[in-house]
Each structure stands twice: as structure tokens, then as C-alpha cells.
């Protein structure tokens, strides 16, 4: 669905990507993790056709994103980190934007808006930033585009809205859609994504499915100094040391995305070796 090959991109003299390659398939929710300024937003904007590769190629559903042809734009929706919505009522905004998206479903929009507690008769400019963001996410999901890119979607959402967000996104996925969520707040994506991609300094540091992570890594709390020493990453807590370890015995554990992220950022080579074995 999305194919990125040997992507090179730089802002003036600051290189962001130098040879990044990545494949994204339909039927998955990808979590794109990384520190601020590592290129997550740049990657999403490149996939959406707002930035052009200086070298390499991006293909989305057979389209070259940079050409921004209407047929491509009808199939890709980007919810940026900072959003702007016009000063009009929600229903009017939907009425005049929806016809551009052939697969837009009004009932679906109203259902999601209801889930998000959005008042459809209200004006966009009278809403809080979080409500505006929820309105845009509701619209984005209702467009039913094949590729949905969400850049830091939980920024500006309160705790209740974040769980609403997880519920809504989980319910929106089908086998024809590819959803990419970029965030540095990894906790927000727990139980939502089925593939984790970590970007650092413009390269893919880690790219695995949640299934593979559950099989190859073991997450546990331990007081055992031997286990702590052999762990890829450990972190002290009141309950003991939280560990990310290799999982040679195929033991079941619940992946902790935040721990995984820290393990990958600090010891990417060791963690990736566990997946290669």
C-alpha cells in the first residue's frame, strides 16, 4: 500500500532521511515512535505528498504522492499535529468538504462525533483545541480513505478523550485501510497498534509486529540482580525492576510500549538481535 525506497530528505542543510526504506500494508495500525525532531512528521508529510523526496521514491496505492492528483488525495488523509479549521459550524464544514471524498459516510461521522462528544451543530471556532481535533479525526475516519495518517493525534486530548480515541480508531480499521499513528507519547497507543516502527535520526531503528514483540521479548518486574543484568533494559520502580528481556522460553507477557521504546532507543542493536535469532 505504501512503499518507501531509499528516501533522502533534508531541510536546507539539516539532513532528516538518508536512505530510509519502509513498507506499510493494509489492515494494520502502525505506531510510528520516535523522539521530537527525528523525522516522524516529515515522513508522514512525505507520504501525504506535502514534501518531496530529494532522492529515492515513495509510492502510495500506485500514485506518486508529490503529484497530489485528486485520485490520490481522495485516498490519503493526514491529520497534522497542529490543526486549522475554518470559523464555520461543524455541519456546514462537513457538508462542503465531504463531497470531495467519494467514500465519505455521514452516518459514520455522526456516530464517531457522538462517541467523541462533539456537538455537530456547534461552530468550529467556538470549540476547544481538543474538540476541534476530535472533530477533524471524526471527519478523517468517516472519509474512509485507504491511508490515514495521524500525527501526534492525542496531543491536546484529555485523559477521557484519549481512551475514546483508542476505541474509535480500533473500531475504524478494516482489511482495506492502513492507519499510521505517529507519537512520542507511546502509552497512548497501547492495545491499539499492531506494528511498532521506531525512527531515530532519520532511520528505522526498529520495525516489528506486536505478535513478534510478544514472542521475542519478555516484559517483567523482578528483584533478581541476575535477570536485571541480562535484560536489554531495566528501570527501577517501587515494585522492583521493570525489565525488557529476551524471551527464549516463549513465555507470555504484556508488552509495555514505553519500556520497549526506551530499550530500542538505548540498545537497538541488542533488541534487534533478539528478533534475528
Amino acid at each position: 500500500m505504501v512503499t518507501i525506497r531509499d528516501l533522502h530528505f533534508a531541510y536546507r542543510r539539516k539532513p532528516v532521511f538518508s536512505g530510509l526504506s519502509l513498507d506499510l500494508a493494509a489492515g494494520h495500525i502502525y505506531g510510528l515512535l520516535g523522539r521530537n525532531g527525528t523525522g516522524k512528521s516529515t515522513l508522514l508529510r512525505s507520504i501525504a505528498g506535502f514534501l518531496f523526496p530529494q532522492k529515492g521514491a515513495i509510492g502510495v496505492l500506485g500514485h506518486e504522492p508529490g503529484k497530489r492528483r485528486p485520485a490520490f488525495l481522495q485516498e490519503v488523509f493526514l491529520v497534522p499535529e497542529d490543526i486549522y479549521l475554518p470559523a464555520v459550524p461543524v455541519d456546514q464544514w462537513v457538508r462542503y468538504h465531504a463531497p470531495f471524498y467519494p467514500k465519505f459516510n455521514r452516518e459514520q461521522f455522526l456516530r464517531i462525533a457522538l462517541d467523541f462528544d462533539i456537538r455537530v451543530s456547534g461552530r468550529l471556532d467556538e470549540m476547544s483545541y481538543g474538540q476541534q481535533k476530535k472533530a477533524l479525526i471524526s471527519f478523517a475516519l468517516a472519509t474512509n480513505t485507504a491511508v490515514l495518517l495521524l500525527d501526534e493525534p492525542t496531543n491536546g486530548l484529555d485523559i477521557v478523550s484519549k481512551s475514546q480515541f483508542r476505541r474509535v480508531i480500533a473500531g475504524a480499521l478494516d482489511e482495506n485501510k492502513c492507519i499510521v499513528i505517529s507519537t512520542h507519547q507511546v502509552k497512548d497507543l497501547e492495545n491499539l497498534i499492531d506494528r511498532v516502527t521506531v525512527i531515530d535520526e532519520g532511520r528505522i531503528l526498529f520495525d516489528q509486529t506486536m505478535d513478534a514483540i510478544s514472542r521475542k521479548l519478555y516484559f517483567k518486574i523482578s528483584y533478581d540482580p541476575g535477570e536485571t543484568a541480562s535484560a536489554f533494559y531495566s528501570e527501577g520502580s517501587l515494585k522492583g525492576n521493570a525489565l525488557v528481556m529476551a524471551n527464549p522460553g516463549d513465555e507470555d507477557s504484556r508488552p509495555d510500549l514505553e519500556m520497549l521504546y526506551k530499550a530500542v532507543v538505548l540498545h537497538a542493536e541488542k533488541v534487534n538481535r533478539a528478533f534475528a535469532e
Partner: protein
Amino acid sequence: MNQTFDFRRWWMLVTLHWVENRKRYGLGLLAIAGLLIAWFSFLLTVDKFSALDLGYQFSAYFVGLYFIGCLLSGTIFSELGDKRQGIGYLSLPASHLEKLLCALLFSIVFFFIAFTLVFYLVDIPFVHAANNLVGERYRTSADMSSVPYTTPVYNILTASGAPMLEQDGHLLLTSYFAFQSVYMLGSVYFTRSAFIKTTVAVLLFMLIYVSFVSEGVGRQLPPGWFIKDLFQWQRGSSLVGQGQWVKLPLVIECALKILVSYGIPVLFWVIAFFRLREKEV
């Protein structure tokens, strides 16, 4: 569906643009009317015997048209200067050509019609009021030796009473579209303060052009010769039979006038289209 231009999609874009901007446009037109009313009222109070003559009307029309028209064109793609708005604008499923034509429709066609309508809505009653006022003053004046001067309404189609530049082929009116196209390109090209930067660029270009003509071309002329206008060089007196002229052939003169009037706008619209296509946010 055609990926370059589809009328239904373009019309949806036009409707969307209108819905999102109608309040701004409406207030803008009211502000124009307010400024014209204030200016004409001021003229009525200071010039008691030739208020609102053709010169005043002509200059009010063209100063307003040039300044506000260029300001509108210089901000028609202002979304692209802001990342948040730029993403929303560029991600809308319409082609670059449709987006450009929508901008042209509002900033060139609709603005010209709306401005001209507002001008006449203010101008016609004010000219009548001025004529009545002048007539009244004449009747009450002690000096009855002169005939009261009544002013006609300025006609942009005939350009009667306008400077020769305008009377001779509407060069000022058509140049307006050339200027507007430059400002439209500026609004796509510059990320911030597009209007100011375009104005600086236009002034710089004019300075270079004037320097080139006076210092470059002027110095190449034989002694005693000078440049009369864009198409004529002259030696000696301008009285008939007393000087010498060299004129460009009429074909070249006409071709240059057509280029300025119609070629430059089209050229800059085409450049704006390509610039829009390669715009990154």
C-alpha cells in the same frame, strides 16, 4: 474522473471557497464602500465648485482597484504561508489547476466585478449630489457670470476624460491585470509577508527597468536624441515640423501593448500554476 480539470469538482471548490470566505469578502466590500464614501464626502466639503470631477473619480477608481486588487491577489494563497492551513488546502482532493482557477475566479473576475459595482453604487449618487450642490452654490453665488460645471459619471468602458494612457486602448485597466497576476504569483512564491515582498520586488524591477532605459538605452542614442516614450525617440522640438522622430513599427508597438495587456497576466498565471504544483508545506 479527469485528474487535471473536472468542472463538478471545480465548482465544489468554488462553493467551498465562498462558504469559508463570504463573511471576509462581504466585510471587505463594505470597507471599500465606506472608504469611498469618506473620500468623496471629504472632496465635497473642500472643493465647492468642481467636486467629484472626472479626475477625482478616475483616480479613486484606479487607486482602489490597483491597491485592493493587488492586496487580495497577494493574499489569495495565504494558506500556503502557514503550515497548518497549507496542509488543509493542499490535501483537499482537487487538482492544482482547479485550485488556481478558483483563486483566479475570486481574485480577478469576482473582485473586479464587485469592486466596480461598489464603486458605482457610491459614485453615481455622490456625483449627482455634487452636481446638485454645485448648482445650488451657483444659484446662491453673487458671481453669475460663469455657467455651473456639472460632472458626468466616469465611464470605465469609454474612459472619457481619463489620461491618454487609459483612453488609448485601456492600457491602465489592462495593466492592472498584469500587476494582479504578479501579486498572485507572489502569494504562491513567498511564504510570509507576500504582499510586501512582492511590492518590493515590483519596485526593484521598475527601478532596474528605468535605469536600463535612461542609463542603458538613453546613452546609446546619438547626441541630441532622447526617449519620448516606450515606442518613440525624438530629437529637437516636439512641435509638428520642427523635430525628428524615430518610431517603432506599428506592428511591434501593437505587439508590445498586447503583450503587456494580455501576455503578462497569462505568463504569470502559468508560473503561479507551476509554483503551486511544486509547493511544499
